[in-house]
């Protein structure tokens, strides 16, 4: 070992700069892993520390229906038994109208009575108004909403029929995500002054009771009251549950991003392997000489493995340091998805794991070419043509197995999922296999169909792609995989957005008006028509619940542990409609749609959505009993429908025929074209809200913008991680250029000695790198088109829309970067005079 370590140290002296890129290849992947893991760890720590601000209370009971007398009695008894504080809340979607600028928008109203949130702060401008808005009968409004409608604290907001003075802007609420406020901007008002009609029939409010206990354990209390809660249809939230939910979700996110980071590390591994392959080739004479002088195969192998291990360690440590630096960027990347503000804390466990994984990857990938050192014959010292021993190298084969096992093990540790454990290495192997196949195909094709009519420099550049010792394969793998990852993400995102845009275009509604009470029907129609608006449909909605399936009581079925029907299907509220025919988002699968039956029909023929029918285990001819506001209606499944839920329009599980529900308590949904432009849509919303404050309006355009925004942010996070792969690809490229420098120096020296001008040598290099970049980009994009199509078709089930502009960008940028790095790395080659090169190479 003494010889190996001394020799390893001495031998590395003159090649350290060249080996630096070996280090860098491994470093970026480690950086990605450490950044994600360390951030994820500090995030979970923060979530745990601030668990109570996630719920804002020690215990919250909530229900989709107003608390019954029994539920109120239970809440009061808890408050009496366990001293502390109590608050009430009703949360629902409703329009907020700003008279000063005549703006209106659907918002999330949170009507509160009491000191909720008890934990965590509502950060406002001006400060501290969160403590006083209830006493003053004022409102707090999300800062983004105020900005959007050009409203300031001091102005007014109307919710329902009640006008509030805006006490301040909500900048931040502890325990809530930024994306949340983006989707449904929040308006806090005192519960006492809430327009009670907003909580009337058809409203989708959630009612909550929040508790803070002076010195009681909420989990113990919960355990005690759990049976009663179930009976009363109440649900509960505690900080522990919220923390678990968040930790699960954040853990999933961290683990997924870790896998993306791991791909970058594997690419780095391929870079390491390619650098070491060239290195071993250059060291063959030294190894043969050492063997002549008495070194055993083990001694020489150990020396080079030691070099690789130390370099791997340096790379991993540098990568970990870079990862910690990148970690400081992650709050900005992930910020709007997080419920808490994450402080900066280095997770030493993540750092240690990152370094360990980095060294392991660097070492295993370095060993793949290094084990060949054992087979370099000593005879080579006296006969250059002496060939390495042939035959199967079992150690090398075992190393390949180790790589596959390592990748699978990482996937298992990250996901704990058998499918991912098998699928992740297989997926990577498939993509790398295809890239390798493409690279070999390209080399064979270039050789077979060599364009002998091309100018000399272009021909030389092209021939370099398949000359001995070429870097085509490794660059195709690294650059190609990076391009593939980023392009696939982009193509899928575009297809998803395009699908939403298609769904919302044409005859689809632009504005959807909810909660129209029967006595408001005509008025609203008149108002909409007065605005020259096209009404696309008016849909009655009746709230029902399921009372029995084929005569058996739903409560009874829920108690039955042998029943396979999911509980939520039995308990949920069914918002149903009645009409004579199917609409264009529906397809009849089986049976017949009955248009109309007399109001007093004993068994009403209904149309059921196919999936829910499957959940309920019913088919044509089966009986369902409905509870319509206290009245039982017996029905029989007459038809099954498929519903395209992706369409932005009201869709229903249950459609009744016209007749029996005509007189039932109901509200309407009105679909309109939504004006010719955003201003017309805004105008209509203002008019409706002014006259009918209880009516909620969904602006589909706004929803689309939101979806686009959220998708954009999700894809930004993914692309940020995929960026590590591209960067690794570029580092590997730089490494490949640098490590093959000596070969290039010799070639260019020979060419220049034979009379080639510097400019010609530069053109040859330019042609080679341009072709390499183009090929890698083309293959990466080609695979991305296939991958994007497969994901769109089979996972997201949307039509695949290839975004050619993005494809073009990739085809331009990747070759441009390849040429830039390739020429920058070869600069020295061209500037040195042939004689100097001749001497130093000798």
């Amino acid at each position, binding site marked *: 070992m*003494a*010889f190996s370590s*001394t*020799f390893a140290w*001495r*031998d*590395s*002296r*003159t*090649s350290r700069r060249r080996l630096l890129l070996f280090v860098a290849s491994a470093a970026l992947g480690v950086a990605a892993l450490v950044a994600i893991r360390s951030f994820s760890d500090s995030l979970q720590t923060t979530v745990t520390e601030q668990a109570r601000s996630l719920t804002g209370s020690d215990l919250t009971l909530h229900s989709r229906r107003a608390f019954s007398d029994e539920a109120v009695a239970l809440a009061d008894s808890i408050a009496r038994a366990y001293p502390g504080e109590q608050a009430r809340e009703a949360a629902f979607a409703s329009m907020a109208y700003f008279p000063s600028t005549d703006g209106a928008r659907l918002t999330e109203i949170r009507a509160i009575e009491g000191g909720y949130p008890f934990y965590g702060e509502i950060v406002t401008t001006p400060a501290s108004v969160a403590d006083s808005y209830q006493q003053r009968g004022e409102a707090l409004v999300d800062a983004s909403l105020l900005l959007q409608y050009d409203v300031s604290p001091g102005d007014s907001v109307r919710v329902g029929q009640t006008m509030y003075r805006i006490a301040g802007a909500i900048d931040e609420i502890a325990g809530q995500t930024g994306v949340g406020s983006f989707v449904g901007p929040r308006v806090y008002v005192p519960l006492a002054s809430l327009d009670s009609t907003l909580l009337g029939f058809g409203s989708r409010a959630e009612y909550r009771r929040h508790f803070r206990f002076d010195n009681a354990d909420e989990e113990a209390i919960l355990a005690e009251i759990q049976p009663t809660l179930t009976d009363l249809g109440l649900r509960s939230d505690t900080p522990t549950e919220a923390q678990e939910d968040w930790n699960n979700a954040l853990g999933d996110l961290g683990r997924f991003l870790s896998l993306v980071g791991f791909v970058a590390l594997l690419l780095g591994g391929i870079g390491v392997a390619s650098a070491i392959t060239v290195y071993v080739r250059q060291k063959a*004479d*030294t190894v043969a*000489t*050492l*063997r*002549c*002088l*008495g*070194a*055993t*195969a*083990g*001694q020489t192998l150990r020396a080079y493995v030691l070099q690789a291990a130390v370099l791997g360690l340096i790379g991993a440590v540098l990568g970990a340091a870079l990862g910690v630096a990148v970690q400081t960027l992650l709050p900005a990347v992930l910020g709007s998805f997080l419920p808490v503000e994450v402080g900066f804390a280095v997770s030493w466990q993540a750092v240690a794991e990152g370094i360990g994984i980095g060294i392991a990857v660097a070492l295993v990938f370095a060993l793949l070419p290094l084990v060949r050192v054992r087979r370099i*014959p*000593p*005879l080579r*010292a*006296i*006969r250059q043509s*002496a060939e390495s021993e042939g035959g199967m190298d079992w150690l090398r084969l075992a190393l390949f197995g180790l790589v596959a096992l390592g990748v699978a093990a990482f996937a298992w540790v990250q996901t704990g999922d058998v499918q991912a454990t098998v699928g992740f290495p297989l997926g990577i192997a498939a993509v790398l296999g295809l890239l390798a196949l493409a690279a070999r195909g390209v080399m064979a094709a270039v050789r077979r169909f060599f364009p002998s009519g091309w100018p000399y420099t272009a021909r030389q550049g092209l021939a370099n792609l398949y000359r001995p010792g070429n870097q085509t394969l490794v660059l195709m793998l690294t650059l190609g995989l990076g391009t593939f990852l980023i392009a696939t993400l982009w193509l899928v995102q575009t297809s998803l957005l395009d699908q939403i845009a298609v769904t919302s275009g044409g005859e689809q509604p632009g504005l959807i008006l909810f909660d129209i009470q029967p006595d408001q029907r005509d008025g609203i129609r008149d108002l909409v028509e007065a605005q020259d608006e096209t009404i696309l449909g008016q849909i009655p909605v009746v709230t029902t619940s399921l009372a029995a399936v084929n005569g058996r009581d739903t409560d009874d079925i829920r108690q039955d542990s042998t029943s396979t029907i999911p509980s939520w299907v039995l308990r949920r509220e069914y918002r149903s409609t009645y009409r004579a025919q199917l609409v264009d988002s529906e397809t009849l699968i089986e049976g017949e749609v009955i248009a109309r039956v007399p109001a007093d029909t004993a068994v009403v023929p209904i149309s059921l959505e196919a999936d829910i029918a499957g959940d309920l285990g019913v088919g044509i001819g089966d009986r369902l009993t409905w509870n319509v506001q206290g009245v039982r209606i017996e029905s029989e499944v007459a038809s099954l429908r498929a519903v395209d839920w992706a369409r932005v329009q009201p869709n229903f599980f249950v459609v009744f025929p016209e007749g029996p529900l005509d007189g039932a308590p109901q509200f309407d949904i009105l679909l309109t074209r939504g004006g010719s432009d955003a201003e017309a849509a805004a105008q209509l919303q203002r008019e409706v809200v002014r006259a009918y404050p209880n009516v909620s309006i969904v602006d589909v355009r706004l929803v689309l913008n939101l979806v686009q925004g959220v998708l954009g942010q999700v894809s930004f996070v993914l692309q940020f991680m995929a960026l590590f792969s591209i960067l690794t690809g570029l580092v590997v490229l730089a490494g490949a250029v640098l490590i093959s420098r000596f070969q290039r120096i010799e070639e260019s020296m020979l060419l220049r000695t034979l009379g080639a001008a510097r400019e010609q040598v530069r053109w040859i290099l330019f042609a080679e790198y341009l072709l390499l970049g183009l090929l890698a980009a083309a293959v990466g994009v080609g695979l991305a088109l296939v991958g994007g199509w497969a994901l769109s078709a089979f996972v997201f089930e949307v039509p695949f829309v290839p975004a050619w502009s993005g494809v073009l960008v990739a085809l331009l940028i990747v070759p441009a970067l390849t040429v830039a790095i390739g020429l920058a790395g070869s600069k020295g080659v061209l500037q040195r005079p042939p004689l100097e090169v001749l001497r*130093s190479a*000798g």
Partner: protein
Amino acid sequence: MSFALSVRNLTKTFDSGSRRLTVLDDVSFDLDDGATCAVVGPSGSGKTTLLGLCAGLDRPSSGTVELCDERLDALDEDDRSRVRGQSVGFIFQQFRLIPTLTALENVTVPLELRGERGDNEAKRLLERVGLGDRMTHYPTQLSGGEQQRVALARAFINRPRILFADEPTGNLDTETSDRVEDLLFDLNAEAGTALVVVTHDLDLAARTERILRLKGGRLVSDEPQSVRENEAA
């Protein structure tokens, strides 16, 4: 007296497509400890093949080599390396210094491979070959003659029983060659090492005690110095 090298019926064949090439054909000879001999012959006569087989760098198709009392055919690759490390020195036509090591470090390699330190001995040998002031230079900073002198120092550092030299002056000009040859034979005499020189250079061959002539892979003559002296007379 024991033999430093004993070669019996050594044959090496290669399959080249459908043909079988015999590059060395039934060669036998012995070399006493401390004796010197030259292997000469035209290009392709099997000189380098013979050297490779004698030093255990390659395996024969048939026949045996006993190097420093070890039957090489009974040893695996690593054991043959061990024998070379303990008892064999090498001089190559291309010098074969390790480019990443200084002159001094190059010389100490054979000792360090055995887990020994040999800085003082290496310095002494470098002084002896006239390179006392070039010890920290890298091979690229040395001339061809200087590189071959470093290689000489390296060859003698482990006090070998036998030294193999493959065209030791093939890459040097006449003047430098003479100096390297003088050093080679002086060091050899001082250490009492057996010497096998493969060369085209008949002047160099003439300085050995015995000349083995190869032609077409066969040993065509084995002349001791005394015979040549008589012939000359």
